[in-house]
């Protein structure tokens, strides 16, 4: 596979806005999940909420896109000098040579959830100010970002539940390899909404406490929200310290809509393919950022797959105890946590996990370890049996 360079990246989640707060949280094992009454939810719920979204004002020319999801997108874009880096790439390549591929599970559906509560009692019509195209439609967040930068290249939203924003790295890689574009903005944005809070609750997959990945007593996810953005370009002359996307593996479980294959066969296939594309053996991987949602069945399946492929020595952890499960944004957020780990030599110890599940035989880190890293792997698995693993590599010593 033709490797790509992450020439810029940024993260916003319950841990804060920008990379510095994320690095600090990883080092100190600080989590961002809080218990609260969210929106009109009738029960207390533990969520990984991004602070300050209600106060974000979208750029005036983009006002029709106003919704929680696009506010989070804009807040995310504004961190870490990401905007000027994209503008430089647009100048270098041209607006039609930069693609936008973002993952989201629910985009701005919260807007339609609220609008359905405000239907006209006689006609049933939605309030006239409701903007379906710019908020609810799955594509709205890519449309927003493409408009934000005035781009004229290809664009799409990948929506494969919790693997969405991992898979966009593959889409961008194939598009660049085909010569159709020179650079791509990839990542994911997903925001809290009633659909996911009530939906995961109906499946009894939400923990009543902040989630505890790979813990023997784990009992479900904590829903979170977040935005991750990266700028990908060809890695023609990689420099020491560059972070490269070197492998993408994708597979399907073909098993069940909302439960993983019990032995993690699809997960294992995705990891093996990512390694093969990167030209690496399992022993080359220094750290695995697990999908680690903290549901009993997900962690059991992933633990089995990791054990089968890597044995029990490779350090690994889930960062969902830090951020909550950001669903369609999780793949992107955790891919960029991998980049942050490579850049800074940090393997994050899990948050929320007290007593490791003795049945899951892997080297799950309960405390943060700082040491130089070369190759790391990120796992993202979603409803519908959609699996994606990514390998990132730091160039040089």
């Amino acid at each position, binding site marked *: 596979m033709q490797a790509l360079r992450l020439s810029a990246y940024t993260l916003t989640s319950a841990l804060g806005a920008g990379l510095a707060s994320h690095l600090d949280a990883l080092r100190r094992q600080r989590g961002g999940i809080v218990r609260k009454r969210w929106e009109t939810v009738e029960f207390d719920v533990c969520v990984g909420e991004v602070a300050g979204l209600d106060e974000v004002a979208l750029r005036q020319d983009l006002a029709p896109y106003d919704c929680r999801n696009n506010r989070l997108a804009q807040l995310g874009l504004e961190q870490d000098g990401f905007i000027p880096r994209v503008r430089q790439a647009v100048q270098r390549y041209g607006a*039609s040579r930069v693609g936008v591929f973002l993952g989201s599970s629910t985009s701005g559906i919260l807007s339609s959830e609220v609008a359905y509560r405000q239907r006209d009692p006689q006609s049933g019509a939605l309030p006239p100010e409701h903007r379906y195209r710019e908020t609810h439609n799955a594509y709205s967040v890519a449309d927003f970002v493409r408009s934000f930068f005035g781009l004229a290249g*290809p*664009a799409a939203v990948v929506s494969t539940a919790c693997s969405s924003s991992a898979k966009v790295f593959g889409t961008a890689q194939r598009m660049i390899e085909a*010569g159709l574009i020179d650079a791509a903005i990839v990542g994911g944005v997903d925001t809290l909404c009633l659909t996911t809070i009530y939906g995961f609750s109906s499946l009894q997959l939400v923990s009543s406490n902040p989630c505890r990945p790979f813990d023997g007593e784990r009992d479900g996810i904590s829903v979170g929200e977040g935005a991750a953005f990266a700028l990908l370009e060809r890695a023609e002359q990689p420099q020491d310290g560059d972070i490269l996307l070197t492998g993408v593996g994708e597979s399907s479980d073909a098993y069940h809509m909302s439960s993983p294959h019990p032995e993690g066969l699809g997960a294992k*296939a995705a990891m093996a393919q990512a390694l093969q594309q990167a030209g690496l053996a399992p022993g080359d991987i220094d750290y695995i950022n697990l999908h680690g949602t903290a549901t009993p069945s997900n962690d059991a399946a992933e633990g089995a797959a990791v054990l089968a492929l890597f044995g029990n020595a490779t350090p690994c952890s889930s960062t969902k105890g830090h951020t909550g499960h950001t669903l369609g944004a999780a793949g992107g957020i955790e891919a960029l946590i991998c980049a942050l780990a490579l850049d800074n030599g940090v393997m994050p110890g899990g948050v929320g996990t007290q007593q490791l599940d003795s049945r899951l035989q892997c080297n799950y880190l309960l405390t943060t370890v700082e040491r130089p890293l070369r190759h790391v792997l990120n796992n993202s698995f979603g409803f519908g049996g959609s699996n994606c693993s990514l390998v990132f590599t730091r160039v040089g010593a």
Partner: protein
Amino acid sequence: MSTATIYLEGLSLLGPGMNDWAEAAPRLLGQQPFQAEEVRLAAPAILPATERRRAGTAVKLSMAVGLAAVEDAGAEAAQLPNVFSSTGGDCENCHSLLEVLASSERMVSPTRFHNSVHNAPAGYWGIATQCTEASTSLCAYDATFGAGLLETVTQAHSAGKPCLLISFDTAYPEPLHALRPIPYPLGVGMVLSPVRTAASKAALRLSFSQEAPTTMDDAQLEALRQSIPSARCLPLLRLLASGQPGRVVIDYLDDCRLAIELTA
């Protein structure tokens, strides 16, 4: 800049007044009158009984066009990485969920929730065909067909094997129908191979263009082209039905359309 050549191995279409490709081809060519009629969809026999009973329009439609395209290519569904592209996925399910969430009880059904993910039809496809290959699910609003086609072409070249495109759209009931007035469900399936095989029907090359899109002569077909994202491919399908080489421009994004050159 155009893509490397891609070979069409299998093709299917299911929409109003066009129950399969044999019925659609002469209507696209103007050899038979086109009349939009309600779309008839059967529950797919290859789904397990429980899932079959619950299957809505999106699953029935996507599975029907997928299976027809695979059969036309003489391929095996289990071997094909696949791309599902749809502007709204299962719009009826989405509406029902929104109604429940706006009610005082908010008793969300677990099945309705897991069917609300955009990749639910792709998940059912995997379960029904036992395909464990890569599968993605896309949306690009009105550019949904073009996005799916580009993804499938680049995926096929990257994987070095044939891939399946299933582009389909369903209609919202009111009140969302007023904001997104898709008149009928419509789906198209294509099996695309990076190399020529005995099954190859046509060779295609894609490039970005700013030309105006090719339109349909028949007013009703042109109305479908403009109102259903997956029907943006109709000019390409008409060219394929003609069996002639040629060139069409299909709608993708407003400032980025797809020119497709077709040779034998």
